[in-house]
């Protein structure tokens, strides 16, 4: 048989490694690096049960291609059922009663009038609030009901036979408050005299999506921190520097605002609680509900057939899940609880603000001698405003100190939001690096080449360097004369390889030649269904649309919670392993009837053939008919990465071309070129979609989005999608994505994540650098509205800065 493979004995690297492989393990050569730039073969020691090494995308039929989205037709034709589409017999509709004051003790909750409304079947008053930070010593504000710490905090909920009745009755729940002093502005909250949001130390853990703040840190007034990290001798680092750049940046609070709001349908039956949830983690919802109600996990089933976006805010049951389940238990009927847009804006998370002072020292040649970041940020009555990720992980430096502080305010708790902390951190870091480059008289890309050894990023910078958009950049800032000034800026982002070991899949092969793949994983829009189908297709040779994909149900093998960009990286190796094992079982099952033994059979490109030529190749379907059983199946779970120590960060480099209308302070983004790596792109179109989305969300954050709280009353003035500004069709520029295939040899699919690294981290900073290139002025705050831009340009003096 002809082969282009190098026999292992001719490969000294492989031979050396093979000698060392322990029992049950073997050494294989895997593609590593970027095709066209750095591709090479490296040895990896893997379990002997692993499927054969997957070649690079160019040599595959289905993986690495972009078949149409597996459920695209169902979505665009309205057949897809989202949580709000679930209709169960006798289902009730629930509506929250939300606090309309920012800080208060609840003296009493009178539900009697609401209960009397015809059609109302139950009222539930919350005793255990989900989401906010918790006092270490709860007795400090012992109270019958949770203390209201932000306007919009849910207090109770009403379940009724239709949504209108529930809404009307919710207004009849009478809450008596004892008002407490409040503070919603971070600057004020930092003052020693500010009202205290918590009477003592309080902590908020992260979710499966990350976020959350440091727990073992001091707390003084509303300041929770600093969380300190030091590497090397920072003082010495600054002494060694030839150049030091220091600057101060602030960023606003951004709200996730996924198109589909948070919500669940809960159906409590004596032996099973079934919950349909708009969630990024069926597993996290099951775990949360089982824990809250003290139920065995086996008696909680969570279903997420389709979901309309989460961006990090949808993990665990949260208040909606807990309350809907409690109301279902109480009323004996299924209960649907979907949040409205205002509740979505107020109570289910946000990206914390930041106030960063960043100092960087460098040698004349660009070598970084020290980085020092002091940050404050508010996650409302939660924690998790740290933003030191980029400063810590993007570049090489001799010494680093980061001091991150959370500042409590009377506002809704922050939660994980697409690359927690990173857009904020990169906005300051990447502009500071550009400032440094200017001081050192270096090209911004050359300086980054000097201080960033990451091999994929290096390729990305090369792609950028050779691009038309970068070549069109005038290295001299403020070069245009008219009132429209054009600028081009670059910035990069960094993200990490997170893997969830709770990732399993089952593949079943039926005698009729149909194949199905099952996992509890949910598809949050990134397209894991399609990718699962592609993997099975690669194994069995059938088109992806013919693979039956069943996900989003905890009845199936456990799936990862989709946070930290783990889904594709974690689950796809389990799917491939299961598909491979199922294929072996299928061959074994069909071998006798095919007149041979399993090891004589090969399944390739949808055909089963005999190595020894015992029969003419037959189609997979005809071979399946010869199985000696109705169904074979294999379940596989994620095994650890092959060579954990060998991975580098993922990320990307984005360039923005903007125009600044100097007279009205309007920034128009013309083009974004984004070069990104994410291991093996399993489905390039879907991967590019993620980056497009990240770029749009990033520019929307940079230019428009802002949660505005009235300082005098503590209420959000723009809890809608009219005055909470999000990029619309005219704001979206031409976006070009250059996907870098960056093989790292870590798993049977070698896939990585893209949801967080793509766009949202680097785009805002690239726009900031483009603004400087256009105008010669640094913009150090977000969002860059006309008001802010005119102020930065020195055209306008505001008495008060835009909140």
């Amino acid at each position, binding site marked *: 048989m002809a082969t282009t493979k190098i026999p292992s004995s001719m490969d000294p690297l492989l031979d050396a490694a093979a000698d060392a492989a322990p029992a049950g393990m073997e050494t294989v050569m895997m593609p590593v690096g970027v095709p066209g730039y750095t591709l090479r073969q490296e040895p990896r020691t893997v379990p002997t049960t692993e499927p054969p090494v997957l070649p690079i995308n160019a040599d595959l039929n289905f993986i690495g291609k972009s078949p149409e989205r597996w459920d695209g037709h169902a979505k665009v034709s309205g057949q897809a059922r989202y949580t709000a589409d679930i209709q169960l017999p006798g289902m009730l509709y629930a509506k929250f009663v939300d606090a309309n004051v920012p800080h208060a003790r609840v003296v009493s909750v009178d539900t009697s009038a609401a209960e009397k409304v015809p059609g109302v079947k139950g009222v539930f008053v919350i005793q255990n609030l989900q989401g906010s930070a918790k006092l270490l010593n709860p007795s400090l504000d012992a109270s019958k009901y949770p203390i209201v710490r932000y306007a919009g905090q849910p207090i109770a909920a009403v379940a009724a036979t239709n949504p209108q009745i529930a809404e009307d009755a919710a207004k009849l729940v009478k809450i008596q408050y004892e008002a407490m002093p409040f503070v919603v502005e971070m600057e004020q909250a930092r003052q020693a005299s500010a009202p205290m949001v918590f009477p003592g130390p309080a902590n908020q853990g992260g979710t499966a999506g990350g976020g959350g703040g440091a727990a073992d840190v001091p707390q003084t007034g509303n300041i929770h921190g600093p969380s300190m990290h030091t590497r090397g001798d920072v003082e010495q680092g600054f002494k060694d520097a030839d150049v030091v750049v220091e600057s101060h940046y602030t960023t606003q609070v951004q709200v996730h605002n996924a198109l589909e709001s948070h919500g669940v349908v809960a159906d409590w039956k004596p032996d099973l609680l079934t919950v349909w949830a708009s969630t990024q983690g069926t597993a996290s919802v099951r775990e949360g509900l089982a824990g809250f109600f003290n139920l065995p996990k086996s008696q909680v089933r969570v279903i997420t057939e389709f979901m309309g976006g989460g961006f990090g805010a949808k993990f665990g049951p949260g208040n909606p899940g807990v309350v809907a389940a409690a109301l279902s238990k109480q009323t004996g009927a299924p209960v649907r609880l979907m949040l409205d847009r205002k509740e979505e804006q107020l109570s289910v998370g946000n990206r914390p603000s930041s106030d960063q002072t960043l100092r960087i020292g460098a040698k004349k040649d660009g070598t970084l001698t020290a980085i020092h970041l002091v940050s404050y940020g508010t996650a409302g009555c939660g924690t998790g405003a740290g933003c030191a990720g980029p400063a810590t992980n993007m570049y090489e430096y001799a010494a680093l100190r980061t001091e991150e502080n959370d500042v409590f305010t009377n506002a809704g708790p922050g939660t994980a939001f697409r690359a927690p902390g990173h857009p904020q951190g990169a906005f300051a870091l990447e502009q500071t690096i550009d400032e440094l480059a200017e001081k050192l008289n270096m090209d911004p890309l050359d300086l980054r080449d000097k201080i960033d050894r990451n091999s994929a990023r290096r390729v990305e910078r090369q792609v950028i360097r050779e691009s038309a958009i970068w070549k069109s950049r005038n290295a001299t800032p403020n070069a245009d004369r008219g009132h429209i000034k054009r600028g081009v800026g670059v910035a990069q982002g960094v993200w990490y390889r997170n893997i969830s070991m709770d990732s399993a899949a089952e593949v079943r092969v039926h005698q009729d030649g149909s194949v199905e793949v099952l996992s509890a994983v949910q598809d949050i829009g990134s397209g894991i269904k399609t990718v699962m189908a592609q993997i099975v297709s690669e194994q069995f040779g059938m088109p992806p649309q013919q693979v039956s994909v069943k996900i989003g149900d905890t009845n199936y093998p456990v799936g990862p919670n989709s946070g930290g960009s783990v889904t594709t990286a974690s689950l796809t190796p389990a799917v491939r392993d299961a598909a491979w094992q199922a294929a072996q079982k299928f061959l074994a099952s069909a071998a006798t009837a095919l007149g041979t033994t399993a090891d004589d059979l090969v399944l390739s490109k949808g055909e089963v053939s005999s190595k020894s030529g015992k029969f003419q190749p037959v189609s997979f379907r005809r071979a399946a008919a010869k199985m000696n059983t109705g169904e074979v199946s294999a379940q596989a779970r994620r095994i650890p990465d092959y060579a954990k120590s060998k991975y580098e960060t993922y990320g990307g480099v984005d360039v923005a071309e903007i125009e600044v209308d100097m007279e*009205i302070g309007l920034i128009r983004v013309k083009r974004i070129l984004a070069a990104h790596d994410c291991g093996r792109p399993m489905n390039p179109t879907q991967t590019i979609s993620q980056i497009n989305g990240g770029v749009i969300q990033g520019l929307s954050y940079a230019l428009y989005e802002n949660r505005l709280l009235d300082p005098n*009353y503590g209420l959000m003035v*723009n809890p809608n999608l009219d005055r909470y*500004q999000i990029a*619309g*069709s*005219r704001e979206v520029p031409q976006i070009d994505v250059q996907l870098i295939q960056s093989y790292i040899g870590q798993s049977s699919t070698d896939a990585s994540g893209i949801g967080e690294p793509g766009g949202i981290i680097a785009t805002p900073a690239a726009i900031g650098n483009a603004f400087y290139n256009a105008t010669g002025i640094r913009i150090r705050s977000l969002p860059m509205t006309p*008001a802010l831009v005119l102020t930065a340009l020195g055209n306008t003096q505001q008495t008060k800065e835009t909140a």
Partner: protein
Amino acid sequence: MNQFVLVDCTTVDGALSQLNDGSVVKAAGVDLLDRMKNGTTTPSRLVNIRNISALRGIHPSPQGVTIGALTTLAEISEHPLLTSQYTILSDACGSAATPHIRNMATLGGNLLQQLQCWYFRSEEYQCLRKGKDLCFAFAGLNQYHAIMDYGTCPSVAPSSSAVALLGLNASVELTSAKRGKRTVAIKDLYVHPDANPTKFNVLEPDELLTAVTIPRPAAGTRSAYQKYGEKQSNDWAIADAGVVLEMDGNVCRKAAIVMGAASPVVRHSPEAEAVLAGKPITEETARAAGKAAMQGGPLQTAMQGAQPLSMNAYKVQLFPVAIYRTILLAAGQMGRDPSAAG
């Protein structure tokens, strides 16, 4: 949402006979339903006039043009007569809101839509315009609020079409069952908060706005409207300008310069108009007119010139630019501004 009765009408008389007992008129409902959803308006009866076909249409006449109250913004923005001779109006209707909304929203509803102040639009704030005595914007968040002529309430006039119609000297026809028809000039349609904080316009509860009549522009008239926002799509004006120029060759005989988002009631700028009268239109005169607009004398209140609030000084920068660029657009000396919204 509160419970209400919906009465669907197909004739003007039918609708007029329903306008009693706190009934509220619903045209396309873009503004009204928004207020009902956020709880600031809780009508017990809605009289739906959307299906009165007699109120929909654009009717040219030798004297000018009459537009039915239910004509959509999209229809107005595309009508050949309007785009050529009443460009300020087709511009205004074509840049209001979004394409989806323009396909629904009616001219009458656009003129009569209520304030966009976020305190007014929140059921949690009981403000001056709701009959209480406090305005929350002065000490609160006021980046989108008024910079001129505001007195007790610095909300801004939300209607783009009103800017155009004021510039064109239009009037509205109001009809009631009891008193028949009356004609009110656009300049007299709105009630300034200082005059009566809870009455937004002169309509009586039993009146319908049935038509808008625009006199034929003088020979040599050129006009334009442009709106600026924080975003270019799906946003409200932070500055806007309506310009009507009566030209004699390159000399401007007479100009109308109108602003919406500067003050609670849409207003002319006599100062800007004076700068242009009798002068050729050049970038210099156009800029001078824009600048003069911010020095405007008192119209509705005793306030002299632009007096920004704590967070909206930037708007004093924006209006002169909006005005000069729109003058040049009207005069044919500049293309449509790529920075404009709509």
